[in-house]
Structure formats: structure tokens, C-alpha cells
């Protein structure tokens, strides 16, 4: 059986388990695949205490996929789309220099081991303390592009199941204006930059103000992050 076949079999069998512990199931699969359990320790981000990376997948020096989880347990996948949009040629060094907090510590830690591919899982209690980081990485084998996509799918699958158990709350999300909701919805279908301004007939200046307001109200780091929060909390449903 190939890696992808084993991953599919694992997800299919897990779907029948009524007592599934999603994160443990994901981790046990990765470990069974020869990924190495690097570390499991408590970790805090000294720079941004409200925001933590939930999962990162490294693929060699040129690609970084990140799935974030924010303080309201929102799963946020910037994935390749974000990498493509920013078109930053990520290198191991730039990752190390650019990342802060846990990401930087983790990257430096992994780099010391010569890790080229890896998955970082961050477990967190629902009361947000303590933050528990476990790193599962592959220092031996390069993952093929197909396998990497499957890693992305299996990680998204189990993280999605994990987060589905936590009911959403909109208590700390401020209400968006009608115009802001329109912009958020337009962003959710892929419009950005000039196309967004043209579609809604708004000047760049006004658009920037709206985007800033949306991010502030939702506590988001970026518009994709804001869209994910909006979708999770039903802000796009009304």
C-alpha cells in the first residue's frame, strides 16, 4: 500500500470510531508512517499571546503551508493560495528569520535536526492553558507532491473534526456593517485588491479603511483569516 492508500484507510476507519480522539488519531498515524516525534512540551508565544499556529507543514525549502487556529478556535488555512499570492520565495533561512514566537523556535529546533518536511501540531486545552506543542516530522524522506497533498488533507480532516466538537460562540465578535459584510463575502469568493474595489465600486482608500475595520472587529490577522472567522460564526449567512 502507498502512503496515500494508508492515509485513506486510516481516515475511513476513523470515521467509524464513535470515541474518536481526532488529534491523537492523526498523530498516531503520522508516527506509524515513520514521522518522528520530536518534542512535546509546553510553549507560549511571547510576541502574540492570542494567536497560535495550530499546524504547519513544511515541504522542503520552498513551501510553507500553515493552518492557524486563533483564540476563538477558528481553523484557518492559508495554504498554498496565500503563498502564491504573496509570492515570497520562502527559504529555510527566511522562514527562520521571518517567523516569530513558537514558529521560530520550532523551525530552529527542526533545522538543527536537518528536517526538510514536517508537521507541527499544537494541542491546546479549551480554556487556552496550557499550550502544548508536539512536533511530528520526517527527517529522512522527501515527501512527493502527491503525498504532501494527502498530508494536507489528513491534517485538515482531523483538525476539522477536532474543532467541530467545540461549538462556536459569537460573543466576542463585533457586529459588521452591511458594507463590511459585503466585502467579507466578496473576499470569501476570492475577490481581492483591484477586483474587489471594482466589483463593489469603492476607492482604494475606502476599501483599505473597511478592510482594517473588518480585521479589527473580528480580531483577524488577515482577510483570509477574517473570512474563515466569518464563515465559522455564520456572519456570511445572514
Amino acid at each position, binding site marked *: 500500500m502507498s502512503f496515500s492508500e494508508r492515509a485513506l484507510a486510516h481516515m475511513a476507519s476513523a470515521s467509524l470510531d464513535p470515541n474518536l480522539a481526532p488529534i491523537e488519531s492523526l498523530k498516531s498515524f503520522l508516527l506509524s508512517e515513520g514521522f518522528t516525534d520530536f518534542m512535546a512540551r509546553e510553549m507560549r508565544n511571547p510576541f502574540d499571546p492570542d494567536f497560535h499556529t495550530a499546524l504547519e507543514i513544511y515541504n522542503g525549502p520552498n513551501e510553507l503551508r500553515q493552518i492557524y487556529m486563533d483564540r476563538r478556535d477558528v481553523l484557518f488555512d492559508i495554504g498554498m*493560495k496565500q503563498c502564491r499570492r504573496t509570492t515570497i520565495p520562502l527559504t529555510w533561512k527566511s522562514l527562520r528569520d521571518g517567523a516569530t514566537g513558537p514558529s521560530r523556535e520550532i523551525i530552529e529546533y527542526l533545522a538543527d535536526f536537518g528536517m526538510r518536511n514536517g508537521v507541527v501540531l499544537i494541542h491546546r486545552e479549551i480554556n487556552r492553558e496550557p499550550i502544548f506543542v508536539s512536533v511530528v516530522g520526517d527527517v529522512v524522506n522527501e515527501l512527493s507532491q502527491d503525498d504532501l497533498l494527502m498530508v494536507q488533507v489528513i491534517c485538515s480532516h482531523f483538525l476539522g473534526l477536532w474543532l467541530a466538537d467545540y461549538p462556536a460562540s459569537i460573543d466576542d465578535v463585533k457586529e459588521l456593517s452591511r458594507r463590511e459584510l459585503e466585502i467579507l*463575502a466578496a473576499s470569501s469568493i476570492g475577490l481581492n485588491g483591484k477586483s474587489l474595489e471594482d466589483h463593489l465600486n469603492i476607492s482604494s482608500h475606502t476599501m483599505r479603511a473597511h478592510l482594517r475595520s473588518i480585521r479589527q472587529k473580528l480580531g483577524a490577522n488577515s482577510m483570509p483569516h477574517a473570512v474563515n472567522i466569518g464563515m465559522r460564526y455564520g456572519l456570511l449567512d445572514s
Partner: protein
Amino acid sequence: MHPPIEIIDRQNICLYQDVLEDLWRMRCRVAKRFNWSIPYLAEGLDKDEFDRDDTIYLVILNDDRRVVGCSRLIPSIEPHLLDTVFGDYCDLKPIPRSKNIWEFSRMFVDRDYVNLVSVVKSCYLLMSGVAELSVAHGLDGVTWYTSMPNYQAALACWRQTFPIGRPALHKPDNVIYVPAFSPIDSDGLVRIKERARHEGPVTQYIHRDGVRSLGEEVNVFENAKEVRHNAA
């Protein structure tokens, strides 16, 4: 308040000829927007070999009876997308296939006709409609070839969803798509209605004689079976 999803099958299709024509044109517009490379787009219609007599359509119409959202169900025991067009992605595991499993495809919403805010709402509405049909008629679930965002949305409601083949990166929009099977039961129906804030039935079946109750008076899946039987 959401508009009802109208269910179209071979038994009531005569009431919807203009709607179907509009549906195929709308699908064409949306597919072009997604940069999908599928046949027939040049002709202005996205009507393929899976738009058959036994296909069941779910459509959302606006006040002018224009199609603003749609999807379709195809029986898994007959040729469908996952065992033909996307067959290469499903070569790792057998595709779930039975008379109680249908393929869910072409979930499209046309943002030309709906408020942008309603795009996501319409997608949830269509998923609620599929869940309602599944539960009313005792289906086991649906197979589909879906983007990861929609996969995640389904997973939150239909917890037993799992991939049934290899994922692929769709280059035009850089989105990962994956073939999946979503078992749907009454819990799954409740979850999606809660998530989408739908109260009461979301689907309706209109016949010449008026509105019929799905599951009790009309079984669209049995109607489709009859179509196939007659054709054979």
C-alpha cells in the same frame, strides 16, 4: 427566511423546461468563472452526459424564476463523475456504490443574481436540501468531488465524511479538491440545519397537482429508478 429548494426529477420536469435551460446557462457562467475546463462551455451551456433522465436537480429560484443556485444528484450505480471523469483520483479505494448512495455534484451559486452575502448561505441551503432528501428517502449518503473548504464545511455537520481518493490541486484557483463520501443520517441533517440556521423543511416538490410531500407522497429516487427501468 430562505427560499425553498425546488426538486426536479423526470416526473415534474415538464414544469421546469425553462428553468433547466437557465440552469445549464448559469452553470456555464459559474464554471467559466472558476476556469474549469469542461466540455460544452463554448456553446454557453454546461449540460453534460450526466444530465440524464434519472438526474435529480435541486434549484434555488429568485422571484423572477431565475436559477441562482443549483446542484444535482446522480445514482452511483450508473456512470457518474467519480467513476468516469474523476476516475483517476479514485483508483486507491473502491468507490462507494449502491442504490442508496448518490453522487452530489455541480453545487453552484450564481453571484450575478444573489447578494454576495448570500453565496455561502445558498451553499449551506443546498447542502441542507441534500441532507433532507437523503433522510426523507433513507439514503446512506452522497459521494462528491469537493473543494477542501466545502469538505471542511461538510465534515462539521456530516462527521463520518472521509476522502475516497487522492487529492488534487486545481491550478486555476489553487484549491485542493478531493473525492469524498459523506454518510448522512438524521444527526447530520440536524447539524447542518443548526449551522445554517434553517428551520422547517428547505425542499419542496411541485407536481401538476400542486405541492407534494417528499418522502411520504413522492420518492424522487424511486422515480429515477423507474426511469432507468423503463429505459432498459
